[in-house]
């Protein structure tokens, strides 16, 4: 509870996040390039990084804006893709209860995937002296990541203006999502979710206003839950039968 231990936690948070920046900065760069390639003005492209600060949803928003999707679709897809933050929020909440409201508001804003992972591990395995100053660690990691996201976005925006359209860099959007999708297919239920969503998305492609994307995501989530429950029931029956 001393300024000294607060400073130590802050520095520990910054140090812990540094190796992760190697993975984050290239994404910021690609986002900036894509945003400019889509025709998003410089100020809007940077504002999205400043305000939304969530890589996957920014990538998707740029893709949607590029195809002229209307704003309700933008907002619905942003909510769907960022739903996982609800889970992070619920998991951090008990640890953050003693904090003053200002701390909660600031730390919540900085809670991207990587920062969540660091903060929750620190709360669960606190340094000697307890969790009393872990919010400084959280702050150090969060601000460092935020600053690196802003600067890598800015560099990407600068480079984006120089990349010719013939390079087809917009395809990095699909490739990025392929890179995230494959490791997410961990079992039958997640594979069912992906297969259903993919098929529905292609079939419903011609629906107006990009509604197909929302419909496909909802069908995929429902399919995943159904398959999960079917296998849980089958496992129960097998356990009873043996």
């Amino acid at each position, binding site marked *: 509870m001393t300024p000294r231990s607060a400073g130590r936690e802050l520095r520990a948070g910054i140090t812990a996040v540094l190796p992760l920046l190697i993975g984050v900065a290239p994404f910021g760069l690609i986002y900036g390039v894509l945003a400019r390639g889509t025709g998003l003005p410089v100020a809007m492209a940077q504002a999205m990084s400043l305000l939304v600060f969530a890589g996957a949803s920014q990538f998707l*928003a740029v893709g949607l804006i590029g195809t002229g999707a209307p704003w309700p679709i933008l907002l619905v897809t942003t909510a769907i*893709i960022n739903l996982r933050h*609800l889970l992070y929020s619920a998991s951090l909440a008990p640890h953050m209860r003693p904090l003053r409201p200002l701390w909660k508001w600031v730390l919540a*804003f900085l809670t991207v995937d990587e920062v969540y992972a660091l903060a929750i591990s620190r709360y669960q395995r606190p340094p000697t002296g307890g969790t009393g100053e872990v919010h400084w660690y959280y702050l150090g990691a969060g601000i460092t990541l935020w600053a690196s996201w802003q600067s890598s976005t800015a560099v990407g925006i600068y480079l984006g203006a120089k990349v010719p359209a013939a390079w087809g860099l917009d395809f990095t959007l699909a490739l990025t999502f392929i890179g995230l999708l494959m490791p997410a297919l961990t079992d039958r239920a997640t594979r069912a979710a992906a297969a259903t969503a993919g098929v529905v998305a292609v079939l419903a492609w011609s629906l107006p206003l990009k509604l*197909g994307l929302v419909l496909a995501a909802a069908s*995929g989530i429902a399919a995943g839950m159904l398959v999960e429950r079917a296998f849980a029931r089958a496992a129960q029956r097998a356990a009873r039968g043996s």
Partner: protein
Amino acid sequence: MGPDVSSPALWLAIVAMGLITYGLRLSMIILFGRVAMPDVLRRALRFVPPAVLAAIVLPELLIADGTFALPPSNARIVAGVVAAAVAWWTRNVFLTIGIGMAVLWILQLVLKS
């Protein structure tokens, strides 16, 4: 068709996207002890990434200029399948992007000539 970037609605949409994301991040931290997360939502969350990602990727690969496109006119699907294999075996997003773009460029060169 490019985005209608002159429209103030797009600015509002970006601000609203920020508010939605912030709201999700802040929600349970502020509401802790007062609201429990519904069990259905907790179970559904696991399927959000595979469903959303597949819903974006498949049309990106299969549909070009508003219609179904198959190889050889569609180099993207070949590059996408190669990228998916790379992603499956390496679990490395940057390698996936790099190899996927390389395959796309090579195919485009071959198809042009």
